[in-house]
């Protein structure tokens, strides 16, 4: 426990929020005690050494981890992030400190027997430290040595029926919002689509054949609780085509104050009496709502399904019943060219379990083909779209251009006409021209 002094880290033990330092200390202690007599396969003081490294970083303001190098399991191009300490003599316990990405179950529901099995494995063959979860969605097993990688993979697959997730230039571990499992607004079964595509694209997930990483995320509605629109090369966001379902009695109950707006999300302050005009009608971005004579009317043709009114009056309003999803493409973090939000490619597609999601795969696969053909090394889909233009993506996917694809039409007139679109083509004779126009 006192292998390294950690005065700076110790200061993070106080305060109300759960202290990761305290948790590390408890783990270090548990490993030291080893009440279950685990035959630790990596150094028993790994956690202490990690604390030592971290304390050093706190003192200096610099990381002490080096580039990964290529480590992994046989036949897979991802799932492991190699990591080495740059002061291995001081901190031998973390000289090697690779992480493994374990593909989380869709929706991140668990049964405790599974979790305990995972803990046992990681106690035995790793640091006993995890991230629940990584920001892509995986279960992150933080820190083990190279010889353990195949062993862990073997036990995961053989004993736990569990595969690794993605890393490298391939499909990354897809993830989803809780959706229909516990949310009244989900327009399709996010868990099933996430699971099914993960299975169907195992090859793309494990064997890097792409120019760079590629992410799927699945949100059941435009609230985007898994942030798909901001973080996924392809975001599948639930939506509907028909009318918002209205329960006029419940509307009245909101107006009357019997029901609390926004599922009581504002209970922490007295915001005064609910005012349907101010809180719903006037905040509707399309101005397509009216509340007159105790009746709420929605001009659904003009509604953009932004969710605001539904969010505020969940007991009175529900998404329509003709549901499906919109597909947005190209979101990514800022490296190299600035962050990108997903851009709407498919306004609406059915999410059809029966067909094995064929309609959706018919969008995915041409995109991959185009990107694999045209994409440069380490070029994300969004970057390729920027470089080659949205038009080329439309051509590659066979989708017709429509105003829904833009927030506004171009304001520059620099249109690249194709030769076949222009009467007479591009080939002309300068001498003919010079007959009409002397030099």
């Amino acid at each position, binding site marked *: 426990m006192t292998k390294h002094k950690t005065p700076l880290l110790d200061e*993070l033990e106080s*305060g109300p929020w759960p202290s990761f330092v305290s948790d590390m200390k408890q783990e270090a202690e548990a490993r030291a005690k080893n009440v279950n007599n685990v035959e630790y396969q990596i150094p028993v003081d790994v956690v202490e050494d990690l604390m030592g490294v971290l304390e050093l970083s706190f003192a200096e303001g610099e990381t002490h981890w*080096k580039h990964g190098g290529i480590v992994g399991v046989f036949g897979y191009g991802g799932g492991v992030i190699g990591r080495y300490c740059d002061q291995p003599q001081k901190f031998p316990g973390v000289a090697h400190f690779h992480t493994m990405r374990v593909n989380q*179950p869709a929706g991140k529901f668990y049964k405790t027997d599974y979790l305990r099995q995972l*803990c046992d494995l990681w106690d035995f063959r790793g640091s006993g430290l995890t*991230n*629940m979860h990584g920001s892509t969605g995986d279960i992150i097993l933080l820190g083990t040595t190279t010889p353990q990688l195949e062993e862990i993979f073997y036990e995961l697959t053989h004993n736990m029926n569990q595969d690794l997730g993605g890393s490298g230039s391939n499909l990354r571990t897809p993830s989803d919002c809780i959706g229909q499992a516990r949310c009244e607004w989900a327009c399709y079964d996010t868990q099933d689509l996430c699971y099914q595509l993960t299975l169907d694209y195992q090859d793309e997930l494990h064997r890097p054949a792409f120019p760079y990483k590629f992410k799927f995320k699945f949100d059941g509605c435009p609230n985007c609780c898994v942030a798909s629109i901001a973080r996924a090369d392809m975001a599948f966001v639930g939506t509907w085509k028909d009318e918002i379902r209205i329960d006029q009695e419940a509307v009245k109950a909101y107006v009357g104050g019997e029901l609390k707006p926004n599922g009581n999300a504002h209970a*922490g302050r007295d915001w005064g009496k609910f005012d349907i005009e101010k809180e719903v009608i006037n905040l509707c971005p399309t101005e397509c709502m009216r509340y007159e004579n105790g009746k709420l009317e929605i001009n659904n043709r003009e509604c953009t399904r932004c969710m605001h009114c539904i969010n*505020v009056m969940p007991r009175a309003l529900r998404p329509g019943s003709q549901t499906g999803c919109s597909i947005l493409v190209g979101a990514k973090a800022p490296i190299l060219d600035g962050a990108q939000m997903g851009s709407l490619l498919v306004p609406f597609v059915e999410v059809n379990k029966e067909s094995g999601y064929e309609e959706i795969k018919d969008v995915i696969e041409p995109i991959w083909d185009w990107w694999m053909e045209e994409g440069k090394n380490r070029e994300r889909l969004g970057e390729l779209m920027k470089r080659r233009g949205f038009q080329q993506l439309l051509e590659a996917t066979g989708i017709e251009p429509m105003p829904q694809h833009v927030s506004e039409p171009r304001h520059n007139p620099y249109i690249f006409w194709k030769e076949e679109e222009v009467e007479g083509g591009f080939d002309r004779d300068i001498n003919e021209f010079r007959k009409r126009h002397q030099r």
Partner: protein
Amino acid sequence: MAFISSGYDPEKPMENRITDIGPRKYDKFYPPVIAKNKGKWLYHEILEPGVLVHVSETGDEVYTVRVGGARFMSVSLIREICDIADKHCEGYVRWTTRNNVEFMVDGKDKVKPLIDDLESRKFNGGSNKFPVGGTGAGITNIIHTQGWIHCHTPATDASGPVKATMDVLYDDFKDMRLPAQLRVSLACCLNMCGAVHCSDIAMLGYHRKPPLIDHEYLDKMCEIPLAIASCPTAAIKPKKVEFDGKTLNSVEVNNSRCMFCGNCYTMCPCLPLADGPGDGIVLMVGGKVSNSRTAPKFSKVAVAFLPNTAPRWPETTDAIKKIVEVYATDARKYERLGEWAERIGWERFFEKCELEFTHHLIDDFRDPAYYTWRQTTNFKF
């Protein structure tokens, strides 16, 4: 410590190999009330901060108790979570997309015992293990990344500043007094694994010095053309250097073109950027992800640099606290931080939050920068 084989034979890696089986199927892990009511939920309500009820058309109800915590978690802690789930929740538990833990029970009577149990548990150091909260118009857990715990490119730590910030924002984790939900994120370098680019408030680790050049090893450890090509501003050029009497192939960096993105270091370990006083945090504000009312928005840089004052990053947490308080007082109900800033105008945002507007905040990155300058006479004094 003797090596214990799992059964894997390195000589015959393909023997008995199981691959491409994917994750465990989601429905194997559904609590019964979820399995039964999936797709049938009618509405929800937040009973108190951290406690939700969802009501199904079958009449069933599921009560969710959400607890915050570090996503950096030991197996000891996970086992403790399992103990709680076994005791109260028939052995089921889930994690949210923001790394909170959700315990679900199928009856109202089961809620209080669960909460009491959760809130009674503390770490030795005194902090809560399982604080209940993070719902509605409040502040939930911080999405973050590896930082100094595991990554080679960070310009700040992750777990440290997150703990410090959540301590400061704790009351709003336990409350729902804000005008709308407020999402805080952290990414330790601008790879932005935390995807902080669309958060109400984002901490972003940022270097401020160009890479050091390890001439002696560069040609041995890196592909020089790849290193050169990696630089988005073309700041890197090939260069011959004299070293120990030998002429080595290496590179030089045009410091004035460097924007400290670290992409060269990703490609070449002989170009490290980490620098104690140079590195720190960029504070960004006003992003959102949901499509509610307004389209998703990117976060904007509000403070160009805050130092890495470990262990508690007071400059950063002060600035965040200030912004949250001003927002809480000034914004309208349902208005996300970015919607508020846009309505009052950024000139007012800086004034009200008492933040200095420095030249760093004016976009000068590529063509789109132009569109962020003010192209109207409409402004506030």
